[in-house]
């Protein structure tokens, strides 16, 4: 079947909504994507027909629920070409990164040690490391980006040293759209005996992943940014590394044997999943992965590239628009600022976003949880549009028309 966004749209009930009297144009996909009916149904079917706690009951329903939950783990593992025991369910990317910081980091990134991040990291891949630094006294080194918003590989090479224990880098920037050359980043780190964590929150809905090929040590992502439910995410970690790591939260379902004095932990991934997990979320995520596979990530990427190219071309025609992030290799994220071409006074992203909303167009404005990056580019924030498989070229034209009217109103 050929890829047709119009057919795909019909799978997303929310896209039928009107906003402020206009058909909803949802361009805030990098914040969270909408959910296909199959995902919504999978979650509701779980509660209607299969709900029971996992890994505990001898009764059939509990085994049923456990099968679904562990089946979801297998689906995720297949999706990224990994082993199910390397898949830890978390609440999202944020928790996955915090987990690594608080267990691996606390034991292995110590006072004299260093780690490397980039200036374009989301706060989720910055603040946990600052917290770790406050605990262990380790030092965070920061790679700049080029003027185009590309990863500065030379600066990275210069920062790698015998002190570097970990490199934590985003696969795709949520603000600039830049897709980082992570395979090369990982290779260079490994030659330096350094482990690598990749923040895959933005990449998973757009890029085919193969952990064996990438060779990342940790890879983190969120269900809700890839057509799945909120509150579920994944930490992938190489088996031999996860096995060495201690748990960071204690509770039920992670324990082999408990006495009042001590506990023996289960193997990974279970030792990291204390307490009743987000069972429905995992099942919904597995369904989202099925949606991605059936729709074909290659086709999605091709379509989204077309959207990105069209939007870039049309935006560049408008006087006073400056695109932030002009990397060669970009995902479907477009950040821009605007100024009045006559007075060169800048037009605030908040004003643009507010007026676009009046036309039913949902965009993100502000700093996108990347405040250091905004400081780096010396801008207060941007307007960001970001695309998913269900967006269309016509929607971009609607957006461009609305934007022109709004800029006139604000100039």
């Amino acid at each position, binding site marked *: 079947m050929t890829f047709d966004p119009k057919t795909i749209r019909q799978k997303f009930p929310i896209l039928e909504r009107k906003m402020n009297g206009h058909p909803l144009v949802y361009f805030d996909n990098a914040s969270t994507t909408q959910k296909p009916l199959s995902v919504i149904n999978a979650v509701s079917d779980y509660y209607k027909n299969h709900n029971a706690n996992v890994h505990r009951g001898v009764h059939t329903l509990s085994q049923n629920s456990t099968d679904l939950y562990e089946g979801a783990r297998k689906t995720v593992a297949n999706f990224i070409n990994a082993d199910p025991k390397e898949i830890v369910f978390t609440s999202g990317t944020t928790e996955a990164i915090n987990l690594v910081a608080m267990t691996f980091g606390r034991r292995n990134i110590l006072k004299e040690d260093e780690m490397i991040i980039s200036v374009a990291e989301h706060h989720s891949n910055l603040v946990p490391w600052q917290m770790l630094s406050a605990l262990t006294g380790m030092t965070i080194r920061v790679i700049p980006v080029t003027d185009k918003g590309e990863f500065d590989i030379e600066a990275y090479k210069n920062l790698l040293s015998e002190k570097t224990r970990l490199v934590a880098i985003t696969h795709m920037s949520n603000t600039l759209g830049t897709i980082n050359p992570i395979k090369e980043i990982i290779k260079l780190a490994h030659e330096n005996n350094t482990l690598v964590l990749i923040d895959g929150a933005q990449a998973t809905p757009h890029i085919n992943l193969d952990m064996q090929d990438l060779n990342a040590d940790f890879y983190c992502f969120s269900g809700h940014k890839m057509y799945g439910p909120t509150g579920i995410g994944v930490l992938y970690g190489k088996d031999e590394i996860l096995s060495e790591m201690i748990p960071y939260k204690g509770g039920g379902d992670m324990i082999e044997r408990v006495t009042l004095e001590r506990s023996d932990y289960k193997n990974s991934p279970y030792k990291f999943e204390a307490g009743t997990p987000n069972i429905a979320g995992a099942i919904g995520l597995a369904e989202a992965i099925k949606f991605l596979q059936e729709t074909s990530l290659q086709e999605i990427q091709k379509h989204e590239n077309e959207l990105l190219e069209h939007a870039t071309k049309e935006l560049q025609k408008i006087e006073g628009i400056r695109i932030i992030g002009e990397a060669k290799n970009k995902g479907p994220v477009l950040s821009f600022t605007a100024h009045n071409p006559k007075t060169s006074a800048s*037009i605030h992203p908040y*004003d643009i976003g*507010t007026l676009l*909303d*009046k036309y039913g167009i949902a965009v993100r*404005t*502000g700093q996108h949880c990347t405040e250091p990056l905004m400081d780096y580019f010396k801008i207060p924030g941007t307007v960001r549009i970001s695309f998913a498989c269900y967006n269309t070229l016509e929607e971009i034209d609607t957006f461009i028309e609305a934007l022109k009217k709004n800029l006139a*109103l*604000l100039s």
Partner: protein
Amino acid sequence: MTKTINQIQDEIIKEFELFDNWEDRYEHLINLGQELPPLPKKLKTEDTLVPGCQSKVWLHISSQNATLHLQGQSDALITSGLLALILRIFNNQPPKEIQNAELYFIDRIKLAEHLSQTRANGLYSIIQRIKDYTIKC
């Protein structure tokens, strides 16, 4: 005699009723924002910066002769417009009146369905900052 808070609110509502589409209402608000006199540089400090807004908002509050004196500025035009309305309503009013004021104009000038609840526009933080000040008076 200064007008009461509610008299000014009613005036503002009437003023916005003159426009029958949202583009014109926003244009009016944006004009009000553009006409707001800029805050002197020395009053733009960490202390006068109101946190919790997507745009930058500075608000300088003082009291004189048992009434409040407000000056403010924002780097976003829509926020400046909203700020201009707030200043028009609260300037030269006694702290007690401000404390008890209910700002019904916000939802009646038909800019957005739930303007008063949207934290991003900073309106909430601006009003909170002013009300907090009146408690200290």
